[in-house]
């Protein structure tokens, strides 16, 4: 195992993040604040409570998920797409590193960034709403798993993408709708029966539900189901990455 290589890749990704730390930080803080103003204040004044939790607090887990999933995906996909685009990938291909080490470096970096942003959004939320976290450890565990699994997916997208349009297409076309329709801003029980059924096919729904359970001890589905869902998603991404590794898909012509 070439740990030195993992280390330099990881550090380079993190250095890039900290170089633009203010930008990286400002964007999620501002957009979260806007969500609180629009959803929390405007809609919250009409809904008041969802399952015993104030609406402002209720949307916090969904808001964090929305940002974290987007950040993890785009960080990881840009991270690996850029060397492909600029040609510097030749160095990874000619170095004594396995695909696993490259994945660890890039995905580790992207997941760490997304995790930091998740915590920052959480901290911002405390400024707007009263919030107590019922299971802090479970909350952190869900957060880490989400960061890692979506970074894995981002990595795959980055390898697959052949231009910048494709790179931003997936987050825009898939992740944002899935998060919005996955109950980020409402409880599935508030929907008509047909839509409830459809929602159960949305993988993000299980993540948000589990994450919300860690905050408020109540969820749309049992927390074990949520855990199983995120484990399955991670496993699918890992299997896909293993397949890329075996075949050299899109990397070694």
């Amino acid at each position, binding site marked *: 195992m070439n740990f030195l*290589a993992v*280390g330099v890749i990881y550090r380079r990704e993190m250095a890039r993040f900290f170089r633009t730390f203010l930008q990286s930080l400002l964007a999620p803080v501002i957009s979260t604040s806007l969500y609180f103003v629009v959803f929390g204040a405007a809609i919250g004044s009409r809904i008041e409570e969802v399952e015993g939790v104030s609406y402002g607090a209720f949307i916090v887990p969904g808001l964090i998920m929305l940002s974290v999933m987007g950040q993890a995906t785009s960080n990881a996909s840009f991270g690996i797409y850029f060397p492909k685009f600029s040609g510097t990938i030749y160095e*990874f291909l000619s170095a004594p590193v396995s695909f696993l080490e490259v994945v660890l470096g890039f995905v580790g970096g992207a997941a760490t960034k997304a995790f930091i942003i998740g915590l920052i959004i959480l901290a911002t939320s405390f400024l707007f709403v009263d919030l107590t976290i019922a299971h802090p450890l479970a909350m952190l565990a869900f957060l880490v798993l989400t960061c890692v699994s979506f970074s894995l997916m981002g990595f795959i997208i980055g390898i697959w993408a052949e231009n910048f349009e494709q790179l931003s297409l997936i987050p825009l076309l898939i992740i944002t709708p899935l998060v919005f329709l996955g109950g980020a801003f409402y409880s599935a029980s508030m929907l008509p029966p047909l839509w409830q059924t459809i929602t159960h096919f949305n993988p993000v729904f299980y993540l948000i539900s589990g994450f919300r359970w860690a905050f408020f001890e109540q969820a749309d589905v049992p927390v074990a189901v949520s855990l199983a869902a995120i484990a399955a998603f991670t496993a699918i991404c890992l299997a896909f990455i293993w397949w890329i590794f075996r075949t050299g898909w899109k990397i070694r*012509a």
Partner: protein
Amino acid sequence: MTDIVTVEKLVKRYKGGFEALKGVDLAIREGEILALLGPNGAGKTTLISAICGITMPSSGSVRVGGKDVVKEYRDTRSMIGLVPQEVNLELFETVWNQVRFSRGLFDKAPDDAFLEEMLKGLSLWDKKDSKTIELSGGMKRRVLIAKALSHNPRILFLDEPTAGVDVELRRGMWETVAELKRQGVTIILTTHYIEEAEAIADRIGIISAGKILLVEEKDSLMARLSQKELRIELAEPLDRVPEALADTGLTLAEDGRRLVYSYDTAGGGGTGITALLSRLKEGGVRMTDISTHQSSLEEIFVDLVEHDGADRQETAQ
């Protein structure tokens, strides 16, 4: 000398079926400088890429230091430094960060003293905190070399290292290469410049259309290049070389309008030109022009390529 790289029956077929390498055999000796010459699209970069691990061979085998480049890639790649043809660098990273990164990627513990020495040797030390975008083209090429050398490779591949580099810098690079050879590094470089191969290589390989046509000691190849021709244009065409001049070795060309005399400049002795010219005068041969001609590596090359083509046509019939 032992062979440090052996390539056997290497075939590379790109997606779409195009064969960029059509069964290449090549042995590279430890400690030598081998220059690979060939026209655009000959397969030089593809050959290097297959040895370094950038592309997967379709069939055949490549061994580096006795290890297989596919199965034992960690061992083989640790031995190799690669300077790619294209200037591919992180635009916003400093020189120093880039060489440290490369060293780590190749599983070598940080060694700032060594990197400092190396950057000084490449005249890059005062640029160590500059970003790639702040460097000139020649400096960028040297950064590529610095990255390749950052992990003390035993074998260095230079893919057209002096393309677009001025004369002075080119000489500087040749010196760097010579110094690396003194340190025991095996060097393979591709080039379009014959003088470059002549100036630094021990052996010269010629590749065309995915096949190695020849690998030869530079000195013996250069001896072939020392052959010159004296061309004598005649006022009136002849149907054969005059009897009186038969022992001079003259031949007729251009439908009898030209006499050709071959001689060697390398031997050190006389070329026989003075004697020949006076005998021509005695023989009453009237000339309109005289010129000399040296066969270039290109001509040897074209010759080889044409023969190769003719061979293939024969086998096809």
